[in-house]
């Protein structure tokens, strides 16, 4: 560099250094994660749970549990099983019928070990929760085993081997209901009852929140100012949406070991996604300024703030959200429906929803009900559509799992990047994957 350039370089260097400092001061800090450390811990946990699952599987055949009618159907895209069905293995203790409709007063020992029973015949799953790759619970319903005024009873199943085998545990409530089950760990779980499963059945409840702190051995009702509609748990906390007489719902928060809920937000929004200690409320409606469209609220450290959501005008008739990491969100926005088609728009945010970048979308067939986002992939499930996946930020979409019926799927979720679960809307089976959704195992219940 010639001498004049060197002098100029020194002056400009100072200008740019100051420029860099001043600009950085206005840049939104990215979401800093201890991701590498968490990733290593996760791998260690996976190794331990894999070892535990292997031991449980080896011992499980003599352990007094039912095996499912397990097709061992490694169902790839297109839904063609590649192995012959396995036969059902009867459980010892046949004749010990399950106890549908158990109330807290007559449920198990309360010592922390749920009173395990068999899977009730005719069980249909409705909601699933995994707290690890091995521990899971299913909420569903089954024909009542003893004469009741209602036709179906609620049923809860538990698995300790990643969903390969299930046992019945006490289920709260009387008549079967539509709802969600969520567990935060092996002891603390919740069920939200949104409404009766069979409208004409007496004994139906709605807006009830049940909690257990002993792994499902006993359940009790939790009082909230309003009717509970959604529950999610993560980061040592449980979040509940509830709607009282006011036109807008409220979000409530409690530590996972307790039943005292604190209101943290009140406003439009029908859905909730959580990751770590953050919650994201979403839905469609009118915001505080009476502007219609999608609703998006970030609740961080117990304080909510409404922000612009991922949906553009024209794709703001429905929205479903998933949190892939503590700061990464994927939003699926839907436009006006026409039969079984709905134009879709997907967007991803890496900064807790402050800004959104559009990514490629699949075709308009189907109505999205559920989205699952791992780091590398995004899965969509819904009515009238197979489960679709993109592994390249939306550039291409493929069928991950064919729908077993015209109703499609009601739910898809992942415990980590490789272990996932899907529930068809018709309650016919449970689908599990351990290879990031490339192949799925179908489990049907007796």
């Amino acid at each position, binding site marked *: 560099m010639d001498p004049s*350039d060197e002098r*100029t*370089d020194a*002056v*400009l*260097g*100072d*200008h*740019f*250094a*100051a*420029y*860099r*400092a*001043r*600009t*950085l001061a*206005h*840049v*939104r*800090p*990215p*979401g*800093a*994660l201890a*991701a*590498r450390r*968490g*990733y290593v811990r996760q791998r260690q946990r996976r190794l331990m749970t894999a070892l535990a699952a292997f031991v449980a599987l080896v011992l499980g055949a003599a352990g007094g549990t039912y095996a499912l009618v397990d097709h061992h159907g490694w169902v790839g895209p297109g839904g063609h099983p590649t192995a012959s069905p396995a036969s059902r293995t009867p459980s010892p203790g046949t004749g010990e019928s399950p106890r549908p409709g158990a109330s807290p007063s007559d449920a198990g020992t309360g010592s922390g070990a749920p009173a395990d029973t068999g899977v009730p015949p005719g069980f249909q799953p409705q909601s699933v929760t995994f707290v690890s790759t091995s521990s899971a619970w299913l909420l569903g319903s089954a024909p009542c085993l003893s004469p009741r005024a209602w036709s179906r009873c609620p049923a809860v199943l538990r698995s300790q081997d990643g969903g390969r085998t299930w046992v019945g545990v006490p289920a709260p409530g009387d008549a079967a209901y539509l709802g969600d089950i969520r567990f935060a760990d092996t002891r603390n779980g919740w069920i939200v009852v949104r409404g009766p499963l069979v409208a004409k059945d007496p004994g139906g409840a709605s807006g009830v929140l049940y909690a257990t702190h002993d792994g499902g051995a006993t359940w009790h009702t939790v009082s909230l100012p309003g009717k509970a509609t959604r529950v999610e748990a993560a980061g040592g906390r449980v979040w509940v949406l509830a709607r009282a007489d006011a036109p807008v719902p409220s979000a409530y928060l409690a530590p996972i070991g307790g039943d005292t809920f604190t209101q943290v937000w009140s406003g439009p929004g029908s859905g909730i996604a959580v990751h770590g200690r953050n919650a994201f409320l979403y839905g469609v409606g009118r915001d505080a300024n009476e502007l219609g469209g999608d609703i998006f609220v970030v609740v961080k450290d117990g304080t909510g703030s409404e*922000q*612009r959501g991922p949906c*553009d005008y024209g794709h703001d008739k429905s929205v479903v959200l998933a949190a*892939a*990491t503590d*700061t*990464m969100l994927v939003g699926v926005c839907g436009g006006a429906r026409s039969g079984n088609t709905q134009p879709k728009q997907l967007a*991803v945010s*890496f*900064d807790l929803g*402050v*800004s*959104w*970048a559009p*990514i490629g979308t699949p075709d308009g067939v189907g109505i999205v009900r559920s989205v699952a986002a*791992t*780091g*590398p992939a995004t899965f969509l499930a819904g009515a009238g559509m197979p489960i679709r996946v993109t*592994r*390249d*930020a*939306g*550039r291409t979409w493929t069928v991950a799992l064919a729908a077993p019926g015209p109703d499609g799927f009601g739910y898809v979720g992942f415990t980590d*990047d490789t272990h996932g679960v899907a529930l068809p809307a018709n309650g016919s089976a449970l689908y599990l994957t351990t290879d990031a959704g490339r192949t799925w195992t179908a489990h049907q219940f007796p």
Partner: protein
Amino acid sequence: MSGSFDEFYAAHFGTLVVQVHAGIGNLAEAQDVVQEAFCRAWGRWEQLTGYDDPVAWVRRVAWNVAISRWRRSRTALRYVLRQRVEHAAGPGPERVALDAALARLPVKQRRAVVLFYLADLTTMEIAEDCGVPESTVRSWLHRARAALLDQLSDPEEVRRGPVG
């Protein structure tokens, strides 16, 4: 895999925004453009982890997106309008002066200056990044320095030394 991507994002987002901002002069747009580049990087993360310098890939994508949007001004305006309103304090006079001076440079000279002073690349690395001979990069920098100094300098500022 998502963890390493998060770290990568956290480590480089801010500096890349500074560089793109210097190129296009709009902070909100720069943040959006860098966000878009990271979004594309996420889709190719497995590939990128095998590169010697994945940051350079993201920077190139961000720059290309920025230039592409800058040329399609109506599309750029829609993106800007969708961003949140910034309530941060406005830039000081020094940053405005440098923004204005950079805006007057031809795109190639501006890019070379940004890569040299804000990305701390050598002339050889800039030449590889831009796909031109190193002598061409030196020529761009020589002309850009002269133009910038002419725009920025007033006798008082030069005597004061470092700004800020």
